[in-house]
């Protein structure tokens, strides 16, 4: 341990003077000297109130030259410079200066902070990241902060600001940094040794530097961060103030419910406190118990929680469509929330396929969810999972919402049957969804038609209709944009090797599925060839079945046709 640390604090405040009074007192009670800079926009009467409230604290001074501070402008640096100068002049034996805002709450006792600083008294705690290397900034300009001019206020003159930036980019304007400086960025809140701070404030070239920084963008995040590299021997690049920003660069507010998390974080100072967070204000800073502990801050957990929130704001929950998340097509970031399987044509080949499949998979196996007569939920309830109605009129009002809600509300994987008879509205949606497993056997719908016993004219009409629908669907399935895991076979192909095809698909859908030993009862394809021939002869062009159906009894059909 070397000489005792004498801490000075610069507090920049803009509004909420009650909170400022409270925080300034916390710093002063902890043994720090405080210089308060109150924004010039605050009325003299309100400032008088603050002065009276803090009158009995001897170690608090008010900066005489008040500046009108506006966000992102040099006025904030000016205010800091003047406040630091006043502080060092009034208390010359100050060894460290901490820059805080009127919404920065000390979490740990000030004594622990001074003990922590005393452990290595020559170190400057300031985040200082080279702007050329890693992108430090969140949402906004980075290196251009230094290379363009920023004479307009972003909050009040947004239009001019944007136009002027665009114009400068077009003109290729590139300001040159004063010699000897390399641009660095970092958190606005720092703790410097008095030696380094004096060196920065009394630098013979300060006027030149100030001139340069006056027209940079957000100089409070770059002025001291850049100059410290010129004057400091030991930079500990990291802020002692925990301040998290969201994706647009706005600071997060801290509320009463963050109390435990803040206590766990072991950070010295946190920002930014919501002024109404009374429990935080009454709990922090934690009282000193015994000898001050000097363990370093561990903001990881707090950071993780805030990062999660940023993720939710930016990426959202996949497959969720709701009142405040309604992604446009192809910006969904996950069309659905979980894998699901669509099986097309198998119920036409095996009448009891659904029941058979249920025995093999540990999934929710539904019937034709998009069937024309109704939604065939597993077990055929009137109201399905998530209280989704089985009424087809309700489903067809918003088929995509129907499917995505079902997948999101259920815990197990959803498997359902499909056919050209069903609602085709989601063909593109499903085919382009990486969560979808699809087994499509085209032309399978011909088998029930073969056994329907309908008059030939009706068979021909239905045949033409279903074939047209399936051909349209094939345009989708053969497109470049398919992201589903698609197994596509025509009927002939499937009937030659049904068992390995099914086994393959079931294993992909559910790795723990029961091995396929036997197939369910199958519709007899005998006579299909004859039906197709008859349809062809009636002027249709049957497709989608494959070239080689299992040998049908050709001579017989021919004879029948001859009769």
């Amino acid at each position, binding site marked *: 341990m070397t000489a005792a640390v004498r801490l000075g604090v610069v507090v920049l405040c803009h509004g909420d003077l009650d909170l400022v009074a409270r925080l300034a007192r916390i710093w002063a009670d902890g043994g720090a000297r405080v210089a308060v800079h109150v924004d010039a926009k605050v009325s003299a009467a309100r400032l008088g109130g603050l002065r009276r409230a803090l009158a009995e604290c001897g170690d608090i001074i008010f900066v005489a030259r008040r500046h009108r501070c506006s966000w992102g402008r040099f006025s904030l640096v000016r205010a800091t410079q003047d406040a630091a100068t006043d502080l060092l002049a009034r208390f010359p034996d100050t060894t460290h200066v901490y820059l805080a805002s009127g919404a920065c709450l000390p979490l740990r006792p000030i004594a622990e902070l001074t003990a922590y600083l005393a452990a290595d008294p020559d170190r400057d705690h300031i985040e200082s990241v080279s702007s050329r290397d890693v992108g430090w900034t969140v949402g906004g300009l980075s290196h251009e902060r230094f290379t363009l001019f920023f004479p307009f206020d972003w909050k009040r003159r947004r239009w001019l600001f944007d136009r002027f930036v665009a114009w400068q980019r077009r003109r290729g304007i590139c300001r040159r940094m004063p010699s000897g400086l390399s641009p660095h960025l970092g958190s606005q809140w720092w703790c410097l040794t008095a030696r380094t701070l004096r060196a920065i404030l009394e630098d013979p070239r300060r006027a030149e530097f100030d001139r340069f920084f006056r027209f940079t963008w957000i100089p409070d995040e770059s002025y001291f961060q850049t100059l410290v590299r010129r004057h400091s021997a030991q930079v500990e690049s990291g802020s002692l103030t925990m301040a998290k920003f*969201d*994706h647009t660069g*706005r600071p*997060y*507010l801290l*509320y*009463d*419910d963050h109390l435990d998390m803040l206590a766990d974080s072991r950070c010295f100072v946190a920002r930014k406190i*919501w002024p*109404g967070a009374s429990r935080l204000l009454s709990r922090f800073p934690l009282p000193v118990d015994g000898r001050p502990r000097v363990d370093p801050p561990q903001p990881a957990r707090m950071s993780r*929680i*805030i990062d999660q*929130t*940023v993720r*939710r*704001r*930016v*990426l*959202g*929950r996949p497959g*969720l*469509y*709701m*009142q*405040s*998340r*309604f*992604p*446009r097509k192809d*910006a*969904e*970031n*996950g069309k659905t929330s979980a894998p699901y399987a669509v099986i097309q044509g198998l119920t036409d080949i095996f009448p009891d396929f659904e029941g058979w499949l249920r025995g093999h998979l540990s999934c929710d196996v539904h019937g034709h969810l998009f069937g024309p007569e109704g939604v065939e939920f597993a077990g055929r309830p009137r*109201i*399905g*999972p*998530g*209280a*989704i*109605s089985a*009424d087809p*009129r*309700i489903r067809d*009002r*918003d088929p995509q*919402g*129907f499917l995505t*809600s*079902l997948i*999101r*509300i259920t815990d197990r994987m959803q498997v359902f049957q499909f056919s050209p008879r069903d609602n085709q509205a989601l063909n593109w949606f499903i085919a382009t969804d990486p969560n979808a497993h699809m087994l499509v056997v085209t032309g399978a719908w011909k088998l029930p038609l073969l056994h329907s016993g309908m008059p030939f004219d009706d068979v021909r009409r239905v045949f033409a209709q279903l074939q047209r629908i399936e051909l349209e669907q094939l345009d989708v399935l053969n497109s470049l944009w398919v992201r589903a895991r698609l197994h596509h076979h025509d009927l002939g192909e499937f009937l030659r090797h049904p068992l390995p095809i099914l086994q393959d698909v079931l294993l992909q859908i559910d790795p723990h599925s029961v091995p396929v030993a036997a197939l369910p009862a199958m519709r007899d394809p005998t006579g299909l060839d004859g039906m197709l021939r008859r349809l062809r002869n009636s002027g249709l062009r049957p497709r989608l079945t494959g070239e080689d159906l299992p040998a049908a009894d050709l001579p017989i059909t021919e004879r029948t046709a001859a009769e």
Partner: protein
Amino acid sequence: MRGLGGHPLVGRLRRRAERQRLIARGILGGGALRALSDRTRRIGPGDILCLVTLRDERARLPWFLDYYRGLGVRHFLMVDNDSSDGGADYLRAQPDVSLWWTDASYKAARFGMDWMNALLRRHGRGHWCLTVDPDEFLVYPHMDQRPLTALTSWLESAGRRSFPAMLLDMYPKGPIEEALCAQGQDPFAVARWFDPANYSIQKNAYFGNLWIQGGPRRRAFFSHDPLASPALNKIPLVKWDARYAYVSSTHMLLPRGLNLVYDEDGGELISGCLLHAKFLSSFAAKSAEELDRRQHYGDSREYRAYHDGLHRGADLWCSESREYRDWRQLEDLGLISRGNWA
């Protein structure tokens, strides 16, 4: 249908004309309101206001007022549409309620919205205003720890002017007629079930809002005509400005930007819910009466559907209903979101 104006400028001009018409209607409709107790001078700067139109809701009022006082509403602006149950006397005795009375037609006043627009314009400017029905109760993320002022100040710092809260129909287990809720009692102690995931959404290109339908009302009363089932999307909380106007109930507003409360790039914005305590024993009597008055939207077809449904002894509960716990449950289900309010 209305978006077919061709050039976007046409739509903008039409919306502007419509907004001005609505504001004018509000100014005119406000003339029908007679102040019974005007305490609006007690409204302080930055106070959150709550605006309500009501008729014969005496039994609900104590719990309603206490609920919103607990959240941090500082003043209530209420329009009594010719109640006959003594609710007005009760409200006049409340120190934080300003009350107006009218016997003008609810339907002719665009289902009360002209009155609301009038009061919003007169007293709501510069305040966060919550416009709800007496059976709607706001739920928002972090509500157990943070008052409504925390939400509004955060919204303001994020540059947001409106906050969406979808209507979530709550219902009891068992027949609705048997779900008694005594005066001053929490209605959600009785009607504490809701539908978790049967909502459908469509974007309204002209007004920019989302049109949400679903819930128990659609599956029980409107399966024959889902298009007619009531809209559930609402934007009840707005930092009011003289240029604003509610278009249809609190479903949407003008200017159009206020309706853009959702993210279209995959992210989530903040949202809440209005728990709807409609389905209690009082509902049967109320729906019969409303059917008689024919003062509701779409020729009261909603009430006709309820009336038919109730004759069959309606029980909205099903095995897939969820029991309401707290806002976290609603967030997990994806009905509301905290957005980036960590």
